[in-house]
C-alpha cells in the first residue's frame, strides 16, 4: 500500500475558491456589459475586449518576466479589465484603453506584489491616471443610440443647474444617458450587485453605507437625490469597486466607515468641487485609509480578561 498523506487539520475545506469568487463577479458584470452594447453599440464590446485582453496579457507577460507563478486562472485580471472598460467612454481610442489596462495590472497590481497585495484598486487608479493623461477623450461622451453625436452627462447638467436637460427617471434607470459605457444602466448594475450579495461574495454594508450617504446628503442639500444616485459611477462603484477585498476593510464596521467615507467624499466633489464626478477619487482616497480603518475596527480577541 502506498504511503498515507499526512497534513495539518482541517482535512476538509469549503468549495469556495478565489477563482469561483472572481467568476461570480464576472457573471455579475455581464448584464451591465450587455446593456452597454445595446445603448452605445458594438464599439463598447471592442473596448471591453481590448481592456480584458491587455489586462490578461500584461499579467501573463509580467509574471513570465519576473518568474512568478502564473495567476491568470484566478480570473482577477479579467475582472480588472471589465471594470476598467466599464469606466471608460465608449469613444475612447483603443490604444488609450490598452495603456490604462497595462497600467492597472503592471503598475497598480503587480508592482505591489500581485493579487491581494495592492493597496489601491487597479481599475480605479488606472482610470484616474487616464483622466489626467487623456482628459479630452476621457470626457468625450457619446449620446446613447448614436455613433457620433455627443452629449453631456447628467452630472454635468446637475452641476450646471440645467435640470430641464436631464433625462427621465426611466432613462436613468435603463441607462439611456451619457456616461462611461458600463456605468449607466442602473438596473443591470443593481441586478449584478444583488447577485453578489446573494452569493455572499460581497456584504451589503459597503454599498448601503456608500449609496445611503449620498442619498442622505443630497436630500439634505436638496440636490436632486434620485439623479445623484443614478448618475456617474455611484452604483458600479458602490457594488463593484468599493467592495474589492484587498483594498477595502474586511470587518463589518470597517465596511460601513469605508462606505460612509466614500459617500461623503463623492458628495464633497460633486457639490463643491470643480470635477462633476467624484466616485473614483472617493474610493481611491478611502483605499489609502483602509489599513487604518482595519486597525480601528479589528475585533478584540476574546481573552475574557485572561493573560
Amino acid at each position, binding site marked *: 500500500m*502506498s504511503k498515507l498523506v499526512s*497534513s495539518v*487539520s482541517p*482535512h476538509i475545506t469549503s468549495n469556495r475558491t478565489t477563482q469561483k469568487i472572481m467568476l461570480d463577479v464576472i457573471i455579475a458584470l455581464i448584464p451591465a456589459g450587455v446593456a452597454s452594447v445595446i445603448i452605445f453599440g458594438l464599439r463598447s464590446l471592442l473596448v471591453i475586449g481590448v481592456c480584458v485582453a491587455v489586462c490578461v496579457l500584461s499579467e501573463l507577460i509580467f509574471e513570465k518576466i519576473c518568474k512568478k507563478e502564473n495567476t491568470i486562472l484566478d480570473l482577477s485580471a479579467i475582472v480588472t479589465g471589465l471594470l476598467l472598460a466599464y469606466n471608460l467612454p465608449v469613444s475612447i481610442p483603443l490604444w488609450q484603453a490598452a495603456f490604462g489596462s497595462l497600467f492597472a495590472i503592471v503598475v497598480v497590481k503587480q508592482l505591489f506584489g500581485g493579487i491581494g497585495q495592492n493597496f489601491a484598486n487597479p481599475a480605479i487608479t488606472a482610470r484616474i491616471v487616464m483622466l489626467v493623461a487623456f482628459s479630452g477623450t476621457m470626457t468625450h461622451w457619446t449620446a446613447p443610440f448614436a455613433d457620433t453625436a455627443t452629449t453631456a452627462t447628467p452630472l454635468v447638467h446637475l452641476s450646471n443647474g440645467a435640470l430641464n436637460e436631464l433625462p427621465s427617471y426611466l432613462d436613468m434607470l435603463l441607462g439611456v444617458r451619457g456616461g462611461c459605457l458600463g456605468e449607466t444602466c442602473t438596473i443591470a448594475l443593481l441586478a449584478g450587485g444583488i447577485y453578489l450579495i446573494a452569493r455572499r461574495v460581497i456584504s451589503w454594508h459597503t454599498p448601503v453605507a456608500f449609496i445611503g450617504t449620498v442619498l442622505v446628503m443630497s436630500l439634505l442639500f436638496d440636490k436632486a437625490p434620485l439623479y445623484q444616485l443614478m448618475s456617474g459611477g455611484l452604483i458600479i462603484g458602490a457594488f463593484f469597486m468599493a467592495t474589492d477585498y484587498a483594498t477595502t476593510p474586511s470587518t463589518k464596521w470597517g465596511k460601513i466607515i469605508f462606505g460612509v467615507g466614500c459617500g461623503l467624499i463623492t458628495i464633497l466633489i460633486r457639490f463643491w468641487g470643480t470635477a462633476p464626478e467624484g466616485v473614483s477619487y472617493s474610493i481611491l482616497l478611502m483605499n489609502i485609509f483602509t489599513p487604518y480603518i482595519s486597525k480601528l475596527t479589528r475585533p478584540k*480577541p476574546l*481573552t*475574557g480578561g485572561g*493573560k
Partner: protein
Amino acid sequence: MKLSGIRVPHRKHTADCAPQRLPVPELVTIPMSMHIGKHAKPIVKVGETVKVGQLIAEADGFISAPIHSSVSGKIKKLDELTMSNGTKTTAIVIESDGMMEVHESVQPPVVNDFDSFIAAVKSSGVVGLGGAGFPTFVKLGVKDLSKIDAVIINAAECEPYITSDTRTMLDKPELIFDGIELLKKYLGTKRVIIGIENNKKACTAKMQQMADNTSGVEVKVLPSIYPQGGEKVLVYNTIGKIVPKGGLPLDVGAIVINCTTLSSIAEYIKTGMPLVEKCITVDGSAVNEPKNVIAPIGTPLSNLFEFCGGFKSEPKKVLYGGPMMGIAVPSLDMPVLKMTNAALAFDESEAKPPKTTACIGCGECINHCPLNLNPPAIAKANKLNLPEELKALCADLCMECGCCAYVCPAKRPIVQNNKLAKAKLNKYIREQKEKEGGK
C-alpha cells in the same frame, strides 16, 4: 454577542448504526501516552499473562493516567511507538488469547465521599474522551467545590461524521444520568446543563425525557454551528461567560465534561470495569460500510476498517477523529487510543490538501474565528519573527478549530501557520520568564 463559527457538512451517516462489537483482535498495541500529561509507567514484563481490566501501567506524576489491559493474553513486547503528533512513547504489545477473561481486580470500587470518588475516577483510567485526553480525575479534583456553579455536559458532537457520542446518548442514557447523580452527590453540583447540537433530534428527545425526571438538569439545544463543542464556545453558549485566556472553565464557575467521559466513569463505578474499549465511528469516502464499532483500546485501525467491509477505494488519508480537528495517522497499524472517537479513511480525491493561492484579503478567516483572532496578522507577525506582536494578537488563544482554513478561498494553511506562531510565542514567553528568573 454571538460567537462566530461555520456551517460544516454533517455527514453523520452512522447516527442510526447501533455499535457492533469487533471480533477480538489478535494483537493490541497500547501506548503509554493516551492522555495529556506524563506518560504512564508500565508495570508488566514481557511474557507475563494479563486479563481484561488488569492494571498494566500506572499513572506517573500528578497529571497522568493509569492504563489497563484491553484483552486477555500475553505481553509480547514493550515497543517504542511514534505517535501521530511525532512524540515517542513506550507501547505495550499484548498477544490476545481470544478468551477476553476478566481480571479479578475488576470489582465495583467503594465510593462514599469526594476523595474516594476522585480516587475511583483516577483508577478508572478515564481521560477526556472528546479528544483532548485530559485526565478526568484532575479536572474533577476541584479544591474549592463552592466555585462550581454548573457542570456542562458536552454532547454537541460538532465534528462531521462522528456519532460515537450520539450512540452513548441513545444506547447508554442511564449511565450519563448515573454520572450526573455522582457529580451531584460528590461535587455538590446543583446545576447540570447538557449541550446538544440541534442536528441530533433523537438524542435531544432522549436526554430531555430523562432530564424531566431528574432535578437540576437542563437540556440546551444549540445551533449546529461548528465548533459548538469547543470548550470555550460551549461555555459561552450555555452560561454566557468567556473563559479567560490561559484559564479554565472553572474560572467562570463551570466544569465541562464530555458525555461519553461521564458515562465511562459511571460504568466503572457501577461495574469496576476501567476504560478498556471504545465506541468508534468508522467512516469516510474510502470505507465500504460505515459503522459504529466497539473495539478494545490498542486495536490496530486496520482491523476496524476490515470489519467495515474493507476499502472501496485505496485510502490515501486516515484520521483519528473528525475532519476538522482530527490527526492524520502515518499508517493503518496505529492503534485505537482512549480518546479515539472516530477512524476516518479518505480516498485520493479528499486526501490531497488543496492548492494554496495568494491571500486576497477577503477577511473570511477573521469574520469566522470564534475567538475573534486575526489569522493574516498572525501569519505576518510569525513570518517577520515578531513575538511581541504575536503576543498582542493573542496567537496563543487559538484553539486550532480550523474555521479559518475551512472558509479560506485561497486554501491557505492557516491552522498550520497558527500552530507555528503559537510555538514561537510560547518559546518566547518561556525565554522571557527564564531571563526574568535569571536576574
